């Protein structure tokens, strides 16, 4: 198996981009990534595009070919493949690209993610997102995505000493980081009071516990490590790529407050990289809701079950803490264009490892991790990157 490196990254600003189309967003991110890698389109061997639900959001399918076409590459006949795993679509697209390069079948591969969510109204997007869970046995009875995570939060708070304030601190911390990220959807800092006075969405989760509806795209370029220096002075190595599945329905899980797919994917990733949680300098976790970040920190092995709330309050996960979590602002403040999120996480970690993260730079970052969840935990992709 060949070692793989990231040689270029690109990301659009995230937000409600009413003036941009799905195609515009993708071309913008893809062009940035190619320019960053200093390559031309003809050098690309394959493309993998993470996208959850273009069929529902913009009534367009056949996304792989569409992306290749609007990137100006239709006549180059590059294999272009759409990858779908709900909100983990981007993480899985990255993993497919890593596998393609590692196998030796392809050399230069683009992994991208894109979602255009604001072309439909809130009710329609809530319904589309509910398709990440079991439509027949969860969505049918009125389960929404925030509702499912709210049931996780109630279960967790029943079992462990997590306070409502500690949960709010996850959002406060991520908005602080997002305010230092030029592409973030939300650039304002908030307080615990902001979270606790926001409207209830699904008890106990309030509006500021939830990631927003977002348009955006991100792209990265991969190459074999032994060729990476032909393109860049700052290649970032892919040290591990892991993926795990679990039941699609939340009600069928062994433990509602543990995402077993995260536990398994995390262990596989650490094993592949030959590292432990203590070796990780920063991590981008899937905080679609504040409770999700609490679960992720524990399920990835950064602390014991039940401790993440207290450690968040004590500052462990802050930019200057022992383990900065979601330096990009996370899904919460950076925004969550569902298919693009997994690639944006890689974009953020690569910037941090190159020392190019500006006001949110983690001093001396050498090893970073990404954690991307589909549905309520039915798919998880974990990657470890290092310099």
């Amino acid at each position: 198996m060949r070692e793989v490196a990231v040689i270029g990254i690109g990301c659009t600003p995230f937000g409600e981009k009413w003036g941009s189309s799905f195609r515009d967003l993708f071309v913008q991110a893809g062009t940035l990534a190619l320019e960053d890698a200093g390559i031309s389109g003809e050098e690309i061997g394959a493309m993998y595009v993470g996208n959850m639900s273009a069929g529902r959001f913009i009534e367009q399918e056949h996304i792989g070919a569409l992306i290749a076409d609007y990137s100006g590459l239709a006549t180059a006949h590059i294999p272009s493949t759409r990858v779908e795993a709900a909100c983990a679509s981007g993480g899985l697209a990255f993993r497919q690209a890593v596998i393609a390069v590692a196998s030796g079948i392809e050399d230069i591969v683009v992994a991208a993610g894109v979602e255009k969510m604001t072309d439909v109204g809130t009710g329609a997007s809530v319904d589309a997102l509910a398709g990440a869970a079991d439509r027949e046995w969860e969505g049918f009875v009125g389960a929404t995505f925030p509702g499912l995570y709210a049931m996780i939060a109630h279960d967790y708070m029943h079992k462990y000493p997590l306070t409502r304030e500690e949960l709010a601190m996850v959002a406060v911390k991520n908005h602080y980081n997002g305010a230092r990220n030029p592409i973030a959807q939300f650039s304002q800092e908030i307080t615990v009071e902001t979270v606790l006075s926001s409207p209830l969405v699904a008890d106990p989760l309030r509006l500021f516990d939830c990631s927003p509806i977002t348009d955006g795209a991100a792209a990265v370029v991969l190459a074999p490590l032994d060729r990476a220096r032909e393109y860049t002075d700052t290649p970032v190595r892919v040290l591990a790529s892991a993926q795990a599945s679990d039941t699609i329905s939340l009600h069928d899980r062994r433990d509602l407050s543990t995402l077993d797919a995260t536990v398994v994917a995390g262990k596989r990733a650490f094993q592949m990289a030959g590292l432990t949680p203590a070796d990780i300098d920063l991590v981008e976790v899937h905080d679609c809701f504040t409770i999700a970040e609490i679960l992720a920190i524990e399920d990835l092995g950064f602390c014991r079950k039940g401790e993440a709330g207290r450690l968040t309050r004590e500052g462990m996960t802050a930019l200057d803490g022992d383990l900065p979590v979601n330096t990009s602002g996370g899904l919460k403040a950076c925004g969550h264009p569902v298919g693009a999120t997994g690639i944006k996480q890689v974009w953020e970690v690569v910037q941090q490892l190159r020392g190019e993260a500006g006001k949110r730079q983690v001093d001396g970052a050498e090893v970073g991790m990404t954690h991307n969840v589909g549905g309520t935990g039915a798919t998880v992709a974990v990657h470890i990157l290092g310099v």
Partner: protein
Amino acid sequence: MSSVARFWRKIPQRYNLVGTRCENCGRYYYPPRTLCPQCRRAGRIREHRFSGKGTVVTYTVIRTASEQFEQMTPYVLAIVQLDEGPRLTAQLVCRPEEARIGMRVRPVFRRISADGESGAIHYGTKFAPDTE
């Protein structure tokens, strides 16, 4: 949920809590499964009608819903563990402040949703507090 057949073929399961039991390992499944995840091809799946008595494992109060459920907010959504073991997601027929983890519940037949003004009306099982 526009196709009538898509709902119609699940009527026994949704109206009467009909699930399955694997006669090889004795496990009960609801929602029903046609392949036992425990025994896989060695399993022997039979229909089983659940009594519907159960306990609330966790719950939430949905305040922002999809278009189909917008008119019903706020409503209580829960994961219920049936006494035979399996868990399912369902609405609770109670006031938001009544819901609590550990609450005993019994099944009730209710309207779940409708496909717009002229589409199919979907019925199914909700759960009410069981005071017995």
